[in-house]
């Protein structure tokens, strides 16, 4: 099965850029353009130290999560032809989405590394924690994809809700702003937005060298819960999806 989803995913990436001259490198430019706007246009208004690093890592993690969630909400609907015409298990489509998002993220990763290098960030052993945090996020991704794919298939309206929420999400997640101090609204959003913790487990070790224990535990618990729900839903509703498409 691994061959099927990997072949389909590489084909998807190629197809999206097939007629362009620089191909998937557009994904890298897209990331750099985004980061550039935040770094040069938004400036370091909030007084965030190492703002370039803050943006580069935060944006990289956010774009990955946003890509996964926005893409998975319509996953089964997009795969209707194959779901209704083949016996491929649903996991093939989930893993196709995972590999597609990882391939896309690799291009953004190059951009992120480039900004880190240019901003003078010095690699340290704490960066290993960031790498582990990224791994944790990728491990949770299939479960999240399953949950959102079922949501989108059974409740079509949710596609619009989730797409809009993810658009707003970029602004209510501390990608390019910091929480500040005291009881400001930013502080409240920072604390209650679950995406914050997924950003911070990757970003904080690189920025400060510290290990954000609470955020790590929070993300791990969310991951385990997502996997439990995903497997239960896959087992209970997997065979019914075909009737809802």
């Amino acid at each position, binding site marked *: 099965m691994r061959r099927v989803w990997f*072949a389909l995913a590489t084909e998807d990436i190629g*197809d999206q850029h097939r007629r362009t001259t620089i191909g998937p490198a557009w994904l890298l430019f897209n990331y750099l353009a985004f980061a550039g706007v935040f770094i040069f246009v938004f400036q370091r208004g909030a007084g965030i130290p190492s703002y370039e690093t803050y943006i580069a890592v935060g944006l990289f993690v956010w774009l990955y999560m946003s890509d996964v969630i926005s893409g998975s909400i319509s996953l089964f609907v997009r795969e209707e*032809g194959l779901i209704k015409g*083949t016996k491929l298990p649903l996991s093939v489509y989930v893993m196709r989405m995972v590999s597609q998002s990882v391939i896309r993220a690799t291009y953004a990763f190059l951009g992120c590394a480039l900004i880190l290098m240019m901003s003078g960030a010095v690699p340290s052993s704490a960066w290993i924690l960031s790498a582990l945090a990224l791994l944790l996020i990728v491990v949770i991704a299939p479960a999240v994809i399953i949950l959102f794919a079922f949501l989108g298939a059974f409740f079509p309206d949710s596609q619009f809700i989730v797409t809009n929420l993810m658009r707003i999400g970029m602004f209510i997640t501390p990608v390019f702003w910091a929480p500040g101090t005291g009881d400001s609204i930013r502080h409240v959003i920072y604390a209650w937005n679950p995406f914050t913790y997924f950003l911070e487990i990757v970003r904080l070790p690189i920025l400060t060298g510290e290990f954000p224990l609470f955020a790590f535990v929070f993300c791990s618990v969310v991951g385990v819960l997502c996997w439990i729900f995903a497997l239960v839903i896959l087992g209970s509703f997997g065979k019914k999806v075909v*009737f809802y498409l």
Partner: protein
Amino acid sequence: MVSITAKNVALVYRVRKKISLSWPDSRIKKDTNKVAVSGRNLQVEALKDVSFSLTAGDRLGLVGRNGAGKSTLLKVLYGVYPPTSGQVEINGHVDALFNISLGFRKEATGRRNILLRGLINGWQKHEIEERMDSIIEFSELGEFIDLPLKAYSQGMAARLAFSIATSLEPEILLMDEWIGAGDPAFQKKARERMGNIAQKAGIIVLASHNRALITSTCNKVLELDSGRVKRLVDVQEWEE
């Protein structure tokens, strides 16, 4: 020993009506024997009480009007739709030819499409490599095989699809309609190949409106009407 047994198979599924700003059509009947309406949901009874059994050598023709449940029954046998009630027991590896262009990528070359389609069919990579040359040869695409599919005419794409789909040697083969691919010369070749497959396959279930085709290919005929078995007879009896 290949076999298919279906016992009292029923399939009911729900279709949600779309929200529409147009005035509701009062001519739509609330309940028919196939569709029941409750609120925004339509309950469609696609199959009801379908029973039959097939053993090696059987060639079953599925006939009936559009919407009688032929394609649905094929998909139940293939395992795409789980039956709502009843049982389907299948011994043997099942292959299906429903939509011949399923999974084709127009930006990829013919050669790459053979690989992709093979993987989707569940074939191993080495099996695909082994069949590659004979598929290309049968498709008569020549140098076009290394051009993207979008450069093909419809007939060429259909020839490629047909060549891939029929390169398998199935134990049980499910087919929805006959495949009329390409020009008359290719169609003749296609008919011969289908004849060979029919001989090699343990069981064939073929849904078609083509009376002559059913008569020449099948030994049994199952006639469906509104999802129910109208009759299950030998092909000679059906012809009369």
